[in-house]
């Protein structure tokens, strides 16, 4: 049942990414191109996505456990640390350069062509290397939370 729901959520997520234009790199880059030909579409995507989710968090707060029995993820109260900021800067840079983030990169797997495949392979390789780099970072930028596995 958990896997069926997960597949359904993934399917709905993928349909939403395609419908909203998030798999179109010109839309994403147009949103980030504030000083160029700015495209505000992404604000509508984010706004539309936050609405049902804000409602879901309210329902979750009242219920205590999910429908399939798993407890809801606790809020992360560790605040914004150096790791969060550094990672977000790097992610933002890559997002601007290609116009793809992880969800759309996967959603466009079948029609992204050679470029899409190169992006995906590089992204997966970096994700594979990240925990190792993270352990090195633990020594240089001590985290305030359990690394790599915690919820955002």
């Amino acid at each position: 049942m958990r896997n069926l729901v997960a597949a359904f959520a993934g399917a709905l997520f993928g349909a939403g990414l395609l419908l909203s234009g998030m798999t179109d790199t010109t839309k994403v880059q147009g949103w980030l191109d504030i000083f160029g030909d700015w495209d505000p579409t992404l604000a509508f995507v984010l706004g539309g996505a936050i609405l049902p989710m804000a409602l879901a968090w309210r329902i979750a707060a009242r219920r205590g456990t999910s429908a399939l029995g798993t407890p809801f993820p606790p809020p992360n109260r560790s605040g914004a640390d150096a790791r969060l900021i550094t990672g977000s800067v790097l992610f933002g840079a890559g997002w601007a350069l290609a116009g793809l983030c992880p969800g759309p990169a996967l959603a466009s797997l079948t029609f992204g062509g050679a470029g899409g495949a190169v992006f995906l392979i590089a992204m997966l390789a970096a994700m594979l290397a990240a925990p190792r780099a993270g352990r090195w970072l633990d020594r240089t930028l001590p985290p305030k939370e359990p690394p790599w596995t915690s919820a955002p």
Partner: protein
Amino acid sequence: MPTDWIFGLLGGLCIGSAAAVYLLCNGRIMGASGIVGALVDGSANNTWPEKASFLAGLVAVPAIIANLAGGSETHLTGNLAVIAVAGLLVGFGTRLANGCTSGHGVCGISRLSLRGIVATAVYVAAGGVVMVIARHGLGLI
């Protein structure tokens, strides 16, 4: 264009509903980088079937819709070096920050999570700066 905005809003509602289903039924935060990253680096442990099922839906449904609609195009740059660097930055950055546009942007902001709000503000700002440098300065993209 207003048509694009309407499609953006409808697509956004689908994305948010997907996150709501994943949270309320499975008790999980729908973060694309977290789900893929945990599968890639092996930290998914016993939750891997759930994560793999999510990915199957995420890849299959856009493929089917795009096919029925007569194909889709991502408009990615032809510069493979830029794409490879971008992929490395996205993969590493999202794992370091523990989230991307779905985890921090959709699930974090809607929960009024400080980390989600800060992360989203930082990656959008960084993206804007890199866009100025790479497009208007260097003419790279």
